[in-house]
């Protein structure tokens, strides 16, 4: 990676993304563990956005939309899995847990929610471009 040379032929010495990747990571972790759902969702959006940005910048991705959508799918699956751990396996009554989200379910929903938003943003961006 140190070999990357940008369009002007110089070595890149600056990137706006690392600060936000770190901040996004910190906020998502804080939000998820302490149970501050808006912070969790916002942090995950920031994390995914800046990861997509950094992948694009370093030419690991050709656009930001596909990484965004991909991360969206990953978060959605993860969030649903977290919710799934709380569903009663005999009745499979999903509504019962989701309509009255407690600690774990709320966290799962926050992760899944962030994932869905990212997926939508990614798809829309991809289609519009």
């Amino acid at each position: 990676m140190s070999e990357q040379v940008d369009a002007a032929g110089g070595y890149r010495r600056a990137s706006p993304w690392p600060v936000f990747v770190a901040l996004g990571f910190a906020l998502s972790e804080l939000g998820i563990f302490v149970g501050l759902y808006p912070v969790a969702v916002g942090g995950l959006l920031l994390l995914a956005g800046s990861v997509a940005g950094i992948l694009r910048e370093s030419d690991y991705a050709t656009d930001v939309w596909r990484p965004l959508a991909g991360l969206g799918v990953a978060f959605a699956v993860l969030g649903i899995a977290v919710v799934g751990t709380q569903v009663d396996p005999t009745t499979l009554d999903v509504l019962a847990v989701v309509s009255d989200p407690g600690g774990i379910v709320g966290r799962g929903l926050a992760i899944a929610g962030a994932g869905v938003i990212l997926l939508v943003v990614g798809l829309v961006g991809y289609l519009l471009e």
Partner: protein
Amino acid sequence: MAGQQLALTVLMGLVLVGVAALLTRIEDWRRYTALAGGAVAVGEESGYGHREKPSGVIRWLTTVDHKDIGILYGVFALISLAVGGLMVMVMRFELLTPASDVISPQLYNAFLTSHGITMLFLFGTPIIAAFGNYFIPLLIGADDMAFPRINAIAFWLLPPGALLIWGGFLIPGIAPSQTSWTMYTPLSVEQAHLGADLMLLGLHLTGVSATMGAINFIVTIFTERGEDVNWANLDIFSWTMLTQSGIILFAFPLLGSAIVMLLLDRNLGTLFYAVGEGGGTILWQHLFWFFGHPEVYILVLPPMGLVSYILPRFAGRKLFGFKFVVYSTLAIGVLSFGVWAHHMFSTGIDPRLRASFMAVSLAIAVPSAVKTFNWITTMWNGRIKLAAPMLFCIGFVSNFIIGGVTGVFLASIPVDLVLHDTYYVVGHFHYIIMGAIAFAVFAGIYYWFPIFTGKMYQRTLAKWHFWLSMIGTNVTFFAMLLLGYMEMPRRYASYEFDPAVAPLDAITLLHQAATVGAVILLIGQIIFVWNVVQSWLEAPTLTDEDPWDLKNDGLFTREFGWNADRLALPDGGEEEAMADGGEAEADQ
């Protein structure tokens, strides 16, 4: 609750919009400058167009240059050192008298916890990363670290981590963590303070940061070496960084997982460490020390590398037995994972297990001693120049001997059963962490000061710094060893013992000696800060490319060669003037 959530949502929304707005501005600037060179749209940055580094604060926020990141790590670590140092000064004043009359025991416990975590994770690990980032690429002839952006991410995880670790003090209305740095269960599960959750999260972030940094160092040293650098002539500092990074790779992710389990136990009702369930409380100690002992070698190996690198240059000869220093480094790297239960001798684990851990712990002293003998033989009959870096190296060796020998005593089960959880242990590890690790850091800062700043520090002040640190360290921590022999327990905010069972006068006196030593240390460090800041700002620019007179002895090294190239540039060697090695800039 709903209102609070709404407010938080709005706040997060604003943060995201703000970030997006900021990014579009930065991206704009980049697009113009990067492509256009001369025809720059954003006026004030035009001078940096060809450099691709914006100016001012934005430059430091966006840099992916290993030297800048090294400086960032260094500044961050020194600020943490000041924070952790001031916390412990308050504690030392509390301990001047047996009664608890300066701060409450709760605040004492909180400072105790925060002091340990701050010094190990916010000062120790980052200051080593500072030297590694700045110098590894220069020493091995690489253009930069292998993953410059990951390097920046690793650094930027630290400030949020620090804020979380200190969160219990910073956020009004929540109590700071009082778990001590070892976070033993069940105490750490049952303590309801939100500050403890924040601290665990912060600790987790610093662990992620250290792991990313370690991966970067390993890949850099393996794949980015210049053509003339091979395994046979790789310098000793890079060897120790490589070994340290390997240890980090195995130790820190484990700490991260153990912390996540602890957080789950605290917040989501799991029972990983619950009394009588699954792993039970002792599981935490095993997991923690499986990380914790390697962590002490994570902290000590690179400083050993610094000393092995710097000391010979002031002894006028090459490092004695270079190969054996490398082998002993690798040996320590492996053995460090086989000794963790020496922290648990008194927990009632199986005596046969205990004996084997005792054997390995005694064995690990051998490679440590090999290094010590190598340093001493390097100085033997050498032409010693007692400049500040050398003084600190000699101080390192001397303090390391005391710290190491006391460690060997602790590794012996019968001795440990008496001394465990007394001030003897505190004395032991402070001899190494303050007396050795911090000394090596100071040696490095003085030795490379001309490279960091293009200036020279003030020699007299540096000598004051050394002697005050050396005396302060030995007064403080030798008093602690003696306190340990009197079985003064560690982690006590007050010590109003019954004089019939404890020699209270002697204990008080030794505590007072330790406090006096700490004040001496503090004065030394104030002189250090003054020296660094004033010399950086006001000293005349240094034009000598060989400030330590290394060429005469054939000990001139790559990083000073690089510095000489920089000085030779027509515009006087401003830091901005060139990329590493000078080639990158030349072909533009």
